[in-house]
């Protein structure tokens, strides 16, 4: 599906680019982004929760004599980190990143 005519003879990298662009175009659906973000959020939350829990458990078992506070602490920390990450991810569009700022 190359453009006909002399004007539109493209080189290989351009071709690659246009394929990517087309791909992007074809499949870019901005409404799916939120869903993706939520997915990531949840996944991240789950992971962080689990990790936090686990670490909490570990720490509670290991270091803190089977208190429950390190578990709640860890899970809370994990949840909190996940919350923060989710929020950040969701906000990421509205925040100017340092690289953009520098630019």
């Amino acid at each position, binding site marked *: *599906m190359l*453009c006909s*005519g002399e004007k539109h003879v493209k080189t290989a990298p351009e071709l690659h680019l246009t394929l990517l662009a087309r791909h992007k*175009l074809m499949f870019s659906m901005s409404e799916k982004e939120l869903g993706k973000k939520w997915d990531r959020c949840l996944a991240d939350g789950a992971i962080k929760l689990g990790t936090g829990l686990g670490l909490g458990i570990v720490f509670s078992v290991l270091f803190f004599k089977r208190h429950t506070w390190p578990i709640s602490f860890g899970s809370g920390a994990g949840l909190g980190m996940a919350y923060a990450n989710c929020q950040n991810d969701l906000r990421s569009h*509205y925040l100017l990143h340092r690289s953009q700022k520098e630019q």
Partner: protein
Amino acid sequence: MLRVCLRGANATARRNCGRTPLTNLQHCRHYTAGETSGGAAKVVAAGLVTVGGGIGGAILYAKWDHKFRAAVEKNVPYSDWLLGLALGPASQDGGFPVKTQMEIAQPPSMMEKQMKTSKAKPEKKVKEAAESPAKETGPVPAQPAQSLEEASAEATHIISAISEVPSVPAPCDTEAAAVKEECKETAAVQPDTESPAAAEPIKERPVEEVAARLAQQDQEEQDIVASISASLEESLASSAKATLQAIGAQEAALQAITRHTHKLKEAMEAEEKSAQWKDLEAALADRTGAVDDAGAALLKANEALDSLKSVIDKSKGLKASAVRPLVLAAEENLHNMVVDLDKVVTKVQSAESEAKIVSQYSELVNEAKQQFQREVSSLTPEIQANWKGLTGKLSVDDLNALIAHAHRRIDQLNRELAEQRVREQIHIDAALEQQKLEDQKALEKAVNTSLQHFKEEARLEQERKLSELREVMEAEMRTQLRRQAAAHTDHVQDVLKVQDQELRAEAEQVLSSKMLEQETCYRQLSQEQLDNFTLDMNTAYARLKGMEEAIDSHVVAEEQARKAHQLWLSVEALSYTLKTADADSPTVPLESAAQVVRDSCGDSDFALALASALPEQSLQRGVYSEASLRARFNSLRSLVRRVALIDESHNSLYQYFLSYLQAVLLFEAKQEAPPAHLSSEDLDPFKLLSYASYCLEHGDLELAAKLVNQLRGEARRVVEDWLTEARLTLETRQVISLLSAYANAVGLGTTQAP
């Protein structure tokens, strides 16, 4: 003054303050006004009187003095109108004196000129009257002067009659002066003719009349001359004949007398013979006859001469100038004849006197002879008279007697001689006296005749000289006239030349203008023809061209139509490709169709622009259909509802939770008709969504996109792609609709008419 009064009024008002200052003031004002009015009226009246008096005085003075009036009129504007009203228009006495003088000067000269012409007229009349034989005017010596005047008057009359130029003042004056002199002269010469001249009407005769008169006069003169010459010739001839006859007679008489004398001498010397005596007698008879004839002829000649003289006098009295030479010649002839006659008469008289002497002598001799004869006969009675031949016949006695007689005779003669000698002186004196008397008489007579002759000769000489002078003068006058005529002819020639030139120039101009006209006409016509021809040619050519163009345009139009059809078809194909989109997947990439469209565009920039205005993505990737977009929107809607509260400032998770809550709790209409104007309330996302879904349901993607475009924040981010897709679709659809419209239009245009 008014101020003073007002001050006074104010002062009174102040004094009477409170009481009615206003009325007081008014009173005062009345008073002051009255006072001032009184004073002003006086001043005004005085001024008016002065001005009126001045004006009246000026008018009166202007009426009296015109120079003043003129000065006033010149210096003061509108015064001429006023003065005209008052006095009437300015009289022209001092106005133009020069002109009137000139005008006055002109008529007198004209009058004088006409008077001169009228004077010349009566002269002519007088001449004509004089020509009639009844009248004889003027003595002869006055005639040459008169004739001079006549000639000069004639000449001036001719000149004035021929040159009928209206008199110009300057030459007119001199002419008037000259004319005046002439008038005076002629008046002096002919005082008797002035009175009839004044009574005549004064007008200048025309040239033809003058010429006719002149011709008539010439004719008359010629007649007179002819008659006079005839009469003169006649009388001359007769007198000449008579004179010749007389002269001949006188000559004959003379000859007869001489012959007689001679014969007598001969007879005396020779012996007396009867033949001689007879001859003598015959001669005597001859002589007497001749003398008588001569006398008669002389009488006749004298008569003839007298008649000739009378004729000459008569002709002199006629005063015709051409007759003068004839008269002169006649007079000369007369004089010559008279002279000849007198000469001959004197000759005859001398001959007669001689003859008388001779006859006396012969008588004496005869007497002596007779006495001697008697004596001899008394002595010798027997001896005959002819004693010369008797020498041989005489005897001695006779001879002695003869000798004694002779001696006696001799003695007697001696005695007589002595006596004569004694009385010689007395005799001689007496004879001398006698002779003197006779000589005196003869001298007187001769002197008288010669005086007469000389007088006559002198008179004739004078006449001749006069005639010569007259001729010379005539010649001079003729030359002058000729010169004048020559000058006049030159002038006329010059004028004619100038006129000729002018006329020629005029004619040439007219000709050239006419020619130019004709040429321009011709050129115009030819140009017109040419123009018409070119016009026709052009029209024909244009029609041909038109036809060709029509045919070409037909071809072109058909081509265009074909192209348009192709375009339409391609556009239709393009628009059909739009319909190939399924619910979820986009259409086929429009590239090929667009390419076909581009190819079938041809040279239509509009179509090309449109074809190239198709968005790249639609060409590469294709576009979503409306239905898919609708479906997508419907799925989007719930998402947008969920993130309605999220924007730049509100984007924490808590906000997310709230917005989710809102979405759950808030109910809006599924579809709501969007208003014509969006207010700020309508910018709520839920409302916008309902509007947009309404629009989508009703197929208005554009409005739906516009409404969706109003979303802000996260909702906007979420619908961004949908919006882009919608935009793409809309763009593509717009371009395609434009193209199809264009193709339709072109197709319609091409199919209907070129």
